[in-house]
């Protein structure tokens, strides 16, 4: 997290620390599902993508329940039973993060408490969470000032209108054939150095639904051009609610 603050215990009880191909983030859904980015499992263009999901599930380390990495390791790993990657995700296409969403099914349900609580999914009929300027918070254990963080950081970021995102992206991408699909949205600032960064992938951007007084996950940290150099791009969870619910229901 660039330009963020340290989270206090219980501020982001859904925050998971993942260690699959390196540091990543995730969010607890229910009591045995971790929502994360697909590219934390199959990174774009990585040589290790030949590993099966079963093998990756065996080797995956998931931590919950604390803001300190060291303490999380002490608490212990939550083993993964299965990994579900959205079928649209293509690890071989380094410039298209469409479908960058995955679900990890834990072998054992976690006991909920003050430091471990799930995040809500958005109501598919409610699109106000993605309106330009809608503030949200994103947390993560990712890079901060070139160093991976040893504690959970968070930063408040506004959602940005699609046209602004596209305009900014067009100005920045140069020859890069990066894709900004309908299943993504961007958030952040152009001038303020507040953003997510490497190691935050898979963490969720959340907004407070005032009507229900609940925090709702709207985006998954997915990609960006540099860190804190403009907007960050997030998987639009609203596009995948049906898929998420289907996976969870069927399993």
């Amino acid at each position: 997290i660039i330009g963020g603050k340290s989270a206090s215990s219980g501020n982001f009880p859904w925050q998971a620390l993942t260690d699959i191909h390196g540091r990543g983030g995730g969010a607890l859904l229910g009591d045995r599902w971790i929502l994360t980015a697909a590219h934390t499992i199959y990174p774009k263009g990585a040589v290790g993508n030949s590993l099966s999901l079963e093998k990756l599930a065996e080797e995956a380390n998931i931590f919950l329940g604390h803001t300190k990495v060291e303490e999380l390791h002490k608490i212990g790993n939550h083993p993964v039973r299965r990994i579900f990657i959205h079928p649209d995700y293509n690890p071989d296409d380094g410039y298209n993060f469409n479908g960058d969403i995955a679900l990890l099914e834990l072998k054992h349900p976690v006991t909920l408490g003050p430091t471990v609580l799930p995040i809500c999914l958005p109501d598919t009929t409610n699109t106000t969470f993605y309106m330009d300027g809608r503030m949200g918070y994103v947390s993560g254990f990712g890079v901060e000032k070139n160093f991976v963080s040893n504690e959970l950081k968070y930063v408040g970021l506004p959602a940005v209108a699609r046209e602004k995102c596209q305009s900014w992206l067009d100005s920045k991408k140069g020859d890069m054939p990066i894709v900004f699909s309908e299943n993504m949205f961007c958030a952040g600032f152009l001038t303020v150095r507040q953003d997510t960064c490497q190691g935050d992938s898979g963490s969720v951007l959340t907004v407070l639904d005032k009507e229900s007084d609940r925090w709702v996950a709207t985006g998954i940290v997915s990609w960006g051009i540099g860190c804190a150099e403009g907007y960050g791009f997030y998987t639009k969870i609203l596009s995948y609610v049906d898929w998420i619910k289907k996976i969870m229901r069927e399993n």
Partner: protein
Amino acid sequence: SSPVPRKLFGVIRSPGYPKPYPNNNISIWDIHVPKGYVVKLTFQYFDLEPSESCFYDYVKITADKKNLGRYCGQLGSATGNHPGRKKFVSKGTSMHLAFHSDFSNEDNGTVISYRGFLASYQAVDLNECDPNSAAGEDERPRCQHFCHNYVGGYFCSCRTGYQLQSDHHSCKVECSSELFTEASGYLSSPDYPQPYPEDLRCNYSIRLQRGLSIILRFLEPFEIDEHQQVHCPYDQLKIQVHGRQIGEFCGVKSPGSIETNSNEVDILFLTDESGFSRGWKIHYTSQKIRCPQPVPRDQFTIIRDLQPLYQFQDYFIVTCKTGYNLMQGNQKLLYFSSVCQADGTWHQSMPHCEIVNCGNPADLTNGAFSYVNQSANNNYQSVITYRCNEPYYHIVTGTGGDTFTCSPEGTWVDQNGQMRIPACLPVCGKPVTPLTEVQR
């Protein structure tokens, strides 16, 4: 002495007959006939010197140690004792004739010849059954009951129910193995209501099918020799059930009715050698044997369609009030019935009812239950409520709610009778310590 061959008939002649008999002669004949016959003797011709009281010449006839007469004279003579056509009949099987002549046969100096006699005898069948034919007056009748004569002998027979004894004279009641197998009937002492015979050893056995109980009802008159001080010393009427004596009776007081509770009864009647009591008579009937009235062991036991009386092959069914289990010892029963057996016992003992216990309620993951009622047990009608560990979980119940009751079936059910317990689902998006930024 002239031996007479043992024949059924014959002729006896005086010495020299038909010529005159000699003087000073004594001749004796012993006539014997077979047993069962008597001797009948008649004179075809008789001509002996007449004299007063047959003093000189005579024929003397004896039979059965009795003198049948002393005979002499001629047919029509004024003196003497001519036998004429008289038939001499013995009572026994022999007859003795003795002829005697003196030294002369003269009448006023004239020698007279007398030719003697010619007699014939025959064996005549003896009617032993004729009371007048008894050899001696003090002799008992030849048969105790019935006498049947035949030529040369006789035999005895007895009235119905009696048996001729080995002495071929006596009759004795045969009552040592009387068997009665009808469902009801009468039995009595021999000759009832006439006095019963002496020395009886009667055994009357009633044998009915299993499950029947024999009832004995004594009729009047009831009379068995007794003693005022000693219990039944002379004659005894004993009632036995399966070899066990249930009564011994005598006197004139009827035992009335006896319910034996058995399908096998033996009645022994023993008498001594004397007495003049009229005996007894029993009308026996039978009914199905009864079993004890079933009694519930507790207030929760229900005996279905309780009958006032239970007999052989009747049965009863036991259930429990709602919320109670039928138990036999420690074993839970799904069904119970007991059948009245032939020996008057129930084939299964009465069970008891034990309150249903639902066991510990199912644990609710991430939640708990608590007892609503103070007794806090798992018995029938106990009530519990499930709750979840709030605020991290919220409860999801069926339409029957979160309150469960211990059912009669031994399961915890909600208000809709469903067993499925609630679930505790995670509460999302509700941090206990949400992010609050003071600085603006």
